[in-house]
């Protein structure tokens, strides 16, 4: 998120647990620990990455972006606004990961097709099954661009 942080932790500690409990940044969520649910998604050098399965020692000087800094990017900000417009969430626990993944999608592909949205988002579980609204929120930003953010 643009800051350099140093921590004293084992090399093999997943980034997720370093973020949450060494750095106190709890926006990134623990869901499964095996990269199956996407709740822990962050960006590493702009690429959507499962932080539960990424050893903190492997990061080196790469840039890590978390949900806490999502609003600093135009796409992220537009998606946050669309999420509220569509009233996407029920419990909301998975939404940090959904937003991070959606931001990576629209950053690399600003006009995805329905199939591309579904394929890009299939790694993110929403137990409340707010999928229809997640899809609509992404489609809205794809359609309207980031100007309204």
């Amino acid at each position: 998120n643009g800051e350099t942080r140093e921590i004293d932790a084992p090399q093999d500690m997943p980034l997720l647990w370093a973020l949450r409990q060494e750095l106190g940044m709890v926006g990134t969520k623990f869901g499964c620990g095996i990269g199956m649910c996407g709740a822990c998604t962050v960006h590493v050098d702009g690429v959507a990455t499962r932080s539960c399965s990424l050893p903190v020692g492997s990061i080196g000087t790469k840039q890590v972006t978390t949900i806490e800094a999502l609003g600093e990017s135009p796409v992220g900000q537009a998606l946050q606004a669309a999420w509220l417009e569509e009233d996407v969430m029920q419990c909301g626990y998975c939404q940090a990961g959904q937003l991070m993944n959606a931001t990576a999608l629209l950053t690399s592909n600003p006009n995805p097709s329905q199939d591309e949205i579904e394929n890009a988002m299939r790694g993110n579980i929403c137990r409340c099954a707010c999928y229809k609204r997640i899809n609509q929120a992404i489609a809205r930003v794809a359609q309207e661009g980031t100007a309204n953010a």
Partner: protein
Amino acid sequence: MRNLSPTLDIALARRGFLKASALIGGGLALTATLPMAARAVASPAGAAGEAGMLGAFITINPDNTITIIGKNPEIGQGIKTMLPMLIAEELDADWDQVSILQGDTDAARYGMQLAGGSFATPMNWIPMRQTGAAARQMLLAAAAQRWGVDAASLTTEPSVVVHAASGRRATFGELATEAAAMPVPDLAQVPLKSAANFRIIGRAIGGIDSPRIVRGEPIFGVDTQLPGMVYAAYERSPVFGARLLSANTDAAKAQPGVIDAFTVEGNGNAEDLVDGVAVIASNWWLANRARSVLSPQWDNGDWASHSTAGYDAAAAAAFASGEPQEVFANKGDIGAAFAGAAKVVEAEYAYPFLAHVAMEPMNCTALMHEDGHMEMWAPSQTPQGGQGAVAQYLGLTPDKVTVHITRMGGGFGRRLTNDYMVQVAAIAKRMPGTPVQLIWSREDDVRSDFYRPAGYHKLRAALDDAGKLVGIDDHFVTFDRPPGPFNPASMPAAEFPANYVPNVRYAQTKLATAVPMGALRAPTSNALAFVFQSFLDEVAHETGKDLPTLMLDLIEGAEPDPTEPGFFGPTPGFNPHRLAAVTRKVMDMARWSEPAAAGRAKGFGFYFSHMGYFAEVVEASLDARNQVVIHDVWAAGDVGSHIINPHGAMNQVEGAIIDGLGQALQLAVEIEGGAAKQSNFHNYQLPRMPMVPNLHVEFVMSDNAPTGLGEPALPPVIPALTNALFALTGKRVRKLPIDTRQFT
């Protein structure tokens, strides 16, 4: 679900009391006190009117902002937004000036605080509105006094009192201090708005916490952070009912970051505390990793021999014997009905154990203060139950256990049981002064659940010469479980169509098990809808009808059932007119009379649960690999006279439909060696975005008090899908999850 009083009168309060107090610096604080809540909780204080307050706590500040307490736990069902909407409506507040605070666990102040059973809407629809209306009356009285006019000549606009005759206006904030000195109205006497004047009820309002969530702010239970906090993991046997013999805690203590490790003795009751080993570390990942060196030795007793295959065989044996353990519904002469039947339809149905897998794994934070007072931050659907359980375990009175209610990453019924609260209390009591956060891994969550009970049904239907259903017989093989106020492994004696068929026998056989069982969203209904609506579809086909026609024929001329004793008091009985209305509505929406597109078929399902009526139609096909593709789902629901928050309501229905489809298609927890075989999302596969069909949801308004939407939309979608697959393939799905190999 314990510590919940069964005596609460859902039929709403007749009389109530309010307490008003001036705030320091000006302003009005209002606490509603309702006898309804007084009956719901043991009365801690003596004075009438003080005891058992139902807290809708309104604070009106001089700057005209208003703070309303949301008393119930928020699990994603939208209650933290919706209950304050009811108060704000009758207060006539400017919603944009309202902020909402989550109330702590406090039975004396707030009455029942429960997220379960879709109960919050019917229980609070009138009391919350009365609370807001009473506060509005006090503001009117204050304005009347200030201006020397009759209160009846005053009206309100959002957060403003208006005297139209003189053009005078005063904001609620300007009047709040004076209002606090006004006599407190009798809640039962305060007039409520007519629906035509609603400004907030019926408005699509976004979740109150959503802006914080999209920014990743700490808001969930597991986000709780306290100075000096340490993290705990808990090793327990995967075999249900096992007792701990020994563990190598010294080895765990030697692992990096580990602060302590110790054994914990349970009480043999999974609802409270099972034997285990706690590992404490500076980081949960380190604590959890150190579990691998504990080498725990368990006494599994006989339970390790239990398996799904064994239960299947026991159910088959029970069916073969033809002798259920007990008959729990008996009407007419079932023997004669079958002896004289022109046709008998017979089928066996089965469904598996299911896990809840709330997205936020179970967790709880506890701090045992040096003075012996326990403070907790609990993601619990029944925080009052958890408070009681922890107090009992620690030998404290409940007032010595403070429970802060956190937002939850889902509940689905899992967090009705507070075992994780007792677990962390058992750990924290060993570490006075140090806050401890217990977190379960996903594997812990899937393998230590209170599962939706599996079940087996052998059904028979007797049809007369005219094809009329004249008898129904069910042998239900279920599981024995410890007594409790609600048994999710049970089946109602009135299970449809019992009241609409002259001869009925429902009987059951209960198998012993140590598998913990609990309520999963729409408990009992999520399984029984599949069984009975599928079987009735079979009956309908035998008689040359379709299921919606059979349903309408069965209830023809029937009047509403009388009020029934419900879990929290009397509830309106099943109303066949409402069944008919939603059935006709969904037939219209789905163009039921027209054939589906080529290669597809439609199926119907209806269910009444949690006071809500839902009829649903699924259109499905099979792809080239014989996998089920769901194209469209139409749902018509009747949950009363108002959809309080259309945003939340639609979201609940859409989510419930996909949840049900996921259960039908691919979810099962199998028992092997006395333990759950599934462990994480790779082998317990929830629906993902590509599976989501087109969803068409409409509500049928009826002249009934609004009821909750967390649950009733789920049950009928399962038989609607399986009935569609029968229409498509001619193969009947009689076992969940759907085994697509039967379609080849």
